[in-house]
């Protein structure tokens, strides 16, 4: 399903993704109402399911708050594409099931409002507006294992069950 691109710059920090003043709750739907509020107050109101966030380097830097990928996911964002990700955000996104792709070329070429189609399994980003295609960096094998298990929660549940049997 194609979605529109929302464009952000470098070093988007988790305080901007979800300001701490809203962290007295942890329900994703409540967090989503304030997602990206300090960078673009329109975002939370106008984002549509299937839209894509495209940003520069070091996306998700700062606080370890998992509320950041939870808020983005609950907005209906289909994927975050960035030139690079901060490391805690990268892990958190996988753990909460928010699709992310690392792709410096897309970060450079995509403009706000471009219509994108994401092929997660193939790591491909198609820009239907510009008629271009960008290939994302491959996901590390081990992360694929976690995704294949359905996320970290079922992965750990399975390990715990194995231990109980052992």
């Amino acid at each position, binding site marked *: 399903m194609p979605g529109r691109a929302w464009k952000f710059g470098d070093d988007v920090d988790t305080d901007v993704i979800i*300001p701490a003043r809203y962290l007295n709750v942890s329900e994703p739907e409540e967090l989503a109402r304030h997602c990206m509020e300090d960078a673009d107050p329109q975002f939370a109101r106008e984002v549509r399911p299937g839209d894509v966030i495209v940003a520069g380097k070091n996306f998700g830097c700062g606080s370890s708050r998992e509320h950041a990928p939870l808020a983005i996911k609950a907005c209906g964002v289909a994927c975050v594409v960035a030139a690079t990700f901060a490391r805690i955000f990268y892990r958190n996104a996988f753990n909460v099931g928010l699709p992310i792709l690392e792709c410096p070329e897309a970060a450079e070429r995509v403009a706000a409002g471009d219509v994108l189609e994401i092929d997660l399994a193939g790591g491909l980003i198609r820009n239907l507006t510009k008629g271009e295609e960008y290939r994302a960096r491959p996901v590390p094998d081990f992360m694929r294992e976690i995704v294949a298990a359905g996320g970290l929660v079922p992965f750990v549940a399975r390990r715990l069950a194995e231990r109980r049997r052992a």
Partner: protein
Amino acid sequence: MGMTVTEKILSAASGRERVEPGELVWCRVDLVLANDITAPVAIREFERMGADRPFDSERVALVPDHFTPNKDIRSAEQARVVREFARRHALPYYFEVGRMGIEHCLLPEQGLVGPGEVIVGADSHTCTYGALGAFATGVGSTDLAAAMALGEIWLRVPPSCKFVYHGTPGPWIGGKDLILYTIGQIGVDGALYRAMEFAGPVINNLSMDGRFTMCNMAVEAGAKNGIIAPDGRTLDYVRGRAKRPWRVFTSDPDASYERVYEFDVTDLEPQVALPHSPANVRPVSRAAGIEIDQVVIGSCTNGRLEDLRVAARILKGRTVHPRVRLIVIPGTQEVYLRALEEGLIAAFVEAGGAVSTPTCGPCLGGHMGVLARGERAVATTNRNFVGRMGHPESEVYLAGPAVAAASAVAGYIAPPEEVA
């Protein structure tokens, strides 16, 4: 080929002879940590994992420090989730208001982290404990839940970068100035996914409190961990506190570094990070004169006894500028008591400052000093992102306690020697 201190800790924790940067390893963890914002999410995920109990009740630390003492009803509910979990599992290291501290000041002080250990915390500033020669890194709540259930975590071995400091720093220079300067040089992603190893004669002479400050802000350069190999000073600090046996690892002379940075800090001025990035760093003389509304001295970065001593040296016998609100927050109850005994608290109150029980409060714009639109603060905290301390149009200038205290007196950003 030798190994770095980070690689040695991760090899020991994963039961291997050696590890290489880039390798994925499962490591046993010596302690897991969460706070009142991150623990409720971790507890929810922990239960979804079907875990009955933490892997070891003595290796879980829960510190409600962000929105405590409870700032509103919703925060109170979050704090209650953490408290009830701690009771249910009889966790000895749950720290209640009145007996607690800011997590990264508290755990080293309580001897809950030690050299050679692997610590993961659902808080990005968990990297603080690298000052003790531990491998310590921040994770999200679900990773924390997994570590709390399994007693282990998967980690990618980071390449190490070494930062060597030479020279004789000036009298007002502390760990904060060294780390701000470093982040200013390499940028907020200058050490992305890397280990930042701090070394050299200046580090050897740096106090433990200064070392905690440096490792604390490694994450502001994108690092996975900051680390300083243990020396006599480290062991003096650890002895008599440590609740578990520790192990000293140091880097081999032929260890391999992705990059080595050498800095001469003899003429380094106190440093200030301007809005809205911890890498937007200038010498204080190039930020001097900017009028301010608030000064915050405290946080997991600079809420330790030495920080309060430096601030009191400047504030004692002087008064806070009429336009400025000074808020001082000792990092732990023990720091608070010692500061009381040493007369530091009296100096702050007599100068016209407010002193608070330990809390992260204003650092993240939670409570105890939130900024209004257009207001400016000098803070000894760690982040000056848009909206970090309150209104999205407010501004935070990061500095060490000397510049913060001098600015509180002057009413504008001021070098310490202008006031003291």
